[in-house]
């Protein structure tokens, strides 16, 4: 660990205004007109995490190279598939479309927040009781922290993945696809955050939560269209898959990345944020109940 880290954190703590409130009192801070200060606080958490992530660029870049492994496998599989099908396009997607679609999925997957493990550990160790006394919202802290970490990972994975796919499948999609995909990718990240936080909070009920993450991950892989686009699903399964939130974590941004279409974009965006609203509601409810049960048990 480099010595600059504790100093950076110390400096941050000195910079952050401490309203000596509990985590849940962020709302009162907003009400009293200190919205900007609150935003600054979470922005500082985010930027500190970015600095932390970049402290070991070699290590971080090394991890990003796994995206090349995945893209090589996908290229082999789909090249063979298109050759066997004897066609240029399958369900409206060409081989280059498919590879860029899969790259976007991989970038989202590798950049998704891993907050569940941290939250779960904090709950199991009892550290959560100590953290709740800090002058920030527990979930707000994890959101900013995760966004800083995920943002760096997304950028590095794109930096490594784009040249790889360019070599394997040709030039990337047009700029409009990038704008639409990145907009929806942010919503996808928020959806992931809600789900991962809910899995982390399960530690209040069960000892082992990593298993839930595995199942959730595979649900996203399959029903989210990460391994195979939803357009290639059996016809009876497509409407069901498109009505679930998983589709808006992977399929929506990746599909619009390679086939940008304004009408579809607005439709996907609306459904995605509807799911975000639902999941934020569920998360807030579960979080409040969890904190209450923690107080009842005396921490």
């Amino acid at each position, binding site marked *: 660990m480099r010595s600059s880290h504790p100093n950076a954190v110390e400096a941050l703590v000195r910079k952050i205004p401490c309203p000596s409130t509990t985590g849940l009192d962020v709302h009162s801070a907003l009400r009293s007109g200190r919205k900007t200060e609150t935003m600054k606080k979470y922005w500082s958490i985010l930027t500190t995490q970015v600095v932390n992530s970049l402290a070991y660029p*070699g*290590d971080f870049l*090394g*991890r990003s*190279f*796994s995206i090349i*492994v*995945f893209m*090589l*496998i996908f290229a*082999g*599989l789909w*090249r*063979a*598939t298109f050759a*066997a*099908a004897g066609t240029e396009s399958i369900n409206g997607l060409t081989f280059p479309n498919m590879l860029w679609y899969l790259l976007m999925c991989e970038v989202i997957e590798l950049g998704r927040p891993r907050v569940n493990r941290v939250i779960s550990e904090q709950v199991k160790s009892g550290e959560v009781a100590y953290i709740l006394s800090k002058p920030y919202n527990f979930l707000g802290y994890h959101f900013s922290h995760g966004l800083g970490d995920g943002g760096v990972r997304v950028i590095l994975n794109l930096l490594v993945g784009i040249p790889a796919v360019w070599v394997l499948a040709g030039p990337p999609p047009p700029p409009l696809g990038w704008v639409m995909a990145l907009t929806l990718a942010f919503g996808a990240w928020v959806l992931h955050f809600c789900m991962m936080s809910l899995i982390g909070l399960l530690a209040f009920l*069960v*000892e*082992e939560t*990593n*298993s*839930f993450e*595995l*199942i959730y*991950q*595979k*649900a996203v*892989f*399959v029903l989210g269209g990460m*391994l*195979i686009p939803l357009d*290639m*699903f*059996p016809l009876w*399964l497509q409407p069901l898959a498109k009505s679930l939130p998983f589709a808006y974590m992977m399929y929506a941004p990746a599909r619009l990345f390679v086939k940008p279409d304004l009408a579809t974009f607005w439709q996907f965006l609306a459904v995605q944020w509807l799911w975000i609203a639902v999941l934020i509601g569920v998360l807030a409810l579960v979080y409040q109940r969890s904190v209450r049960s923690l107080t009842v048990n005396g921490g």
Partner: protein
Amino acid sequence: MRNLQLLSALWKANLQSAMEYRAAFLTQVIFMMLNNLAYFMFWVLYFDKFNSVRGWTLQDMMLLFAVAATAWGIAAYFFGNFTTLSEIISLGRLDYYLSLPRPVLLHALASRSLGSGMGDLIYGVGSYFLSGYVSVDGFLRFLVGVAVGVAIFLSFLTLVQSLSFWLGNSTAISQLALSALLTFSLYPRSLFDGAAKFILLTIIPASLIGSIPAEFVKSFSWPVLLQLLASSAFLLTASTWVFYRGLRRYESGNSMQVEV
């Protein structure tokens, strides 16, 4: 013989430890089976759309998953530290194993058991029986394929993680190697041509874990058997030699610790 006694004692202790948290252990086992099943749904959907790819069908993929999952499951359940060896080395946690008169590598690898490995093991065997390639001699070939897979997983990861003796913390490269080995092992080698095919037999020997053993289970071949046995024997020897060579450079973590 003494090594077998050591392994037997360690596995017994690991089982007793798992049984202390029976519910958590069973959750890990069941969820890992569900996890594998959910992942395999990709191939169900794929072969629903495309009947075969380069001669591989859904049944063949079930066989490939059977061999790879069983091999991974055995390695994870019986030698659970095989994925965290680099951390053990770089954090100086080999001190404990060095202080005892037992083979350091074997002791370190078998000192931990991953409960989820049992889920992989059960899933793998189940997948074999559902694959449609069940016969007495086929099952014997399946066992050979699994044994080779376990040997490759253990030796390749030991080899890569032994880099920690020279590089310090090599967790990132170890994770990359693990990710590459595991992911490539779950795909048929016929999908890859030229250099990629060569790499999957040498630098990242993933084809020796899934694809080639699955082909061997389908039909016996002396050259393939010799290839599998020679490759695993070579990798086991090389990884053990590199580990003990690196151990000479090991610097104690000088930390107090208790192994439970």
